[in-house]
């Protein structure tokens, strides 16, 4: 990360000595400490790590849904703790893993909820709001479903609607927590490609926590690797060089193939003829 010339001017999000985890009666449980993170504009960053390592905790802390245990987080030049929720809603939007409760909202209405930070006390949409909602729905290519109730949609379509809602919120920063968790391969690739295009074309910064390691390797501008003992970030090439990717999963069955730039089953190595032994 030494290649950043003037971090404060460009970083949309950064943290200094950030500590994350949980406070309970039994004491404080640290999930990770001394995190010095940095997100630049127009970047697609994937947060990788095995289950339970604290990816969701990190995203929740960065989005102020959960208290940090130490250090500071900056959104542009302001400290996160000093930004109230209505201001933060204009800077950062979320796509979460949680299932949303049943209701009779249509796709359009659901996406339009993303305009709430900008609408009046009754939530009335101006013509500009309407246009932004329409654009967001168009960006995820769901125009045809705009008037359907959202509970009629498939998981893949619903996830795109949630992304459209985040787009309608018109924020520079979008955080997504495992956006492809329930999707098949086809929809997973579609969602990732969509997010990649958004980062490239609209200069939005997109942070995704995901288990789609191979897709992340192929598409992400930067990777954040979370392991119980340490946190590293950098481009795919740098992380291969530093052997950090190879050590992401502490398992015998899965190895990182440097030529393919993919994780592969160890048993498959002989088939591909590409020995991945270091």
């Amino acid at each position: 990360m030494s290649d950043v010339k003037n971090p404060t001017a460009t970083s949309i999000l950064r943290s200094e000595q950030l500590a994350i985890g949980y406070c309970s009666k039994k004491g404080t449980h640290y999930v990770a400490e001394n995190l010095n993170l940095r997100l630049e504009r127009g970047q697609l960053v994937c947060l990788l790590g095995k289950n339970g390592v604290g990816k969701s905790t990190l995203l929740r802390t960065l989005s102020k849904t959960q208290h940090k245990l130490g250090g500071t987080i900056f959104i542009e030049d302001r400290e996160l703790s000093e930004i109230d929720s209505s201001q933060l809603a204009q800077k950062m939007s979320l796509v979460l893993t949680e299932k949303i409760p049943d209701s009779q909202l249509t796709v359009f209405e659901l996406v339009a909820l993303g305009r709430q930070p900008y609408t009046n006390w009754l939530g009335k949409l101006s013509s500009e709001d309407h246009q932004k909602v329409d654009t967001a729905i168009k960006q995820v290519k769901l125009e045809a479903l705009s008037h359907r109730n959202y509970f009629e949609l498939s998981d893949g379509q619903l996830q795109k609607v949630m992304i459209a809602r985040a787009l309608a919120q018109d924020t520079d920063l979008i955080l997504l927590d495992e956006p492809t968790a329930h999707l098949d391969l086809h929809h997973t690739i579609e969602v990732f490609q969509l997010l990649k295009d958004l980062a490239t074309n609209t200069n939005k910064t997109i942070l995704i926590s995901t288990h789609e390691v191979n897709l992340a390797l192929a598409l992400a501008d930067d990777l954040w690797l979370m392991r119980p003992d340490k946190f590293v970030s950098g481009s795919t090439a740098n992380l291969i060089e530093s052997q950090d990717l190879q050590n992401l999963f502490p398992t015998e069955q899965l190895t990182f193939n440097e030529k393919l730039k993919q994780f592969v089953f160890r048993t498959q190595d002989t088939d591909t003829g590409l020995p991945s032994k270091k």
Partner: protein
Amino acid sequence: MRTGQKTHTTSFAILGLLLLLTAFTNIHLGSIHIPSGDIASILTGYPSAEKSWDYIVLNYRIPKAITAILVGSGLGISGLLMQTLFRNPLAGPFVLGISSGASLGVAFLLLGASLFGGVFAGLAQQSWSIALAASLGSFFVLGAVLLVVKKIRNTLSILIVGLMFGSISAAVINVLSYFSNAEQLQQFVFWSLGSLGNLSWKELALFSGIVAFSTVLLLRSIKPLDSLLLGENYAQSMGVALKKTRRILVISTGLLTGVITAFAGPIAFVGLAVPHLTKLIFNTSSHKILLPAVALNGAILLLVCDAIAQLPNSELTLPINAITSLFGAPIVIWLLVRKQKINV
């Protein structure tokens, strides 16, 4: 018309007309037959053919109709709020034990006199003290439910907790009844059957004041309520101040339920049934539409129930609480069977 915006002008117009019609019918019906022409002239400020009719309509039937409107719309609104706040279609003032809390407050006041003596006995004679006791009781239970909600996030557990609070209240009421005398017991039982007809204009003014105050509080929450449809985390990410919103919703629901239960007794079912009825008619989840629609529907439903409870042209009056359940439960069952799906 813009894409995605549904207009409901016609539905609102029909409901408005229905409200006027049911209100008029409600005033028209009663143990003494008064011709509709005379009712109309009394309503427009002219004397009718008989002086006693004027008295009946002005001091008995009109206050009762207004009470029905306030009770129906207030309970409907608090049911809607509970359903959105707890993201559960089964939530309502009754299921969450709030009405039981109000009953508990009133039971302490009416039945506790023999246990706690002097001060309570004096207070029990005042109508405002019943209102206060009921409100305190409903706040108490609502607060307790919310404390538990902080610990457990599973909505099904929340409902069970509400039911448990309801049965604790019922048990305490049983103990209190055991120690009270026949007269106090009768007073409490009559209160608990529900009644729309015992309010003076003065009490009605206080009642409408509190209902109006809670409604004004709610108007500011229409937008947060809509985003709460996506759950609390999403709502927060869209700029909703969660704690403040939750506090406002709890205070206004507690006030509405408390004051209604105080003045009209624990009216069952309206709080649960009316929001569902409305959502099915209007086919929307937008609170901008639902809040006024629920208020209208609640008022109409209770006016109709009250007209039935009157048993027109007879001396008898059935307890309103029995009618709302007899009338409301089949409607909800029918809707469920027809629609196969029920939403928050």
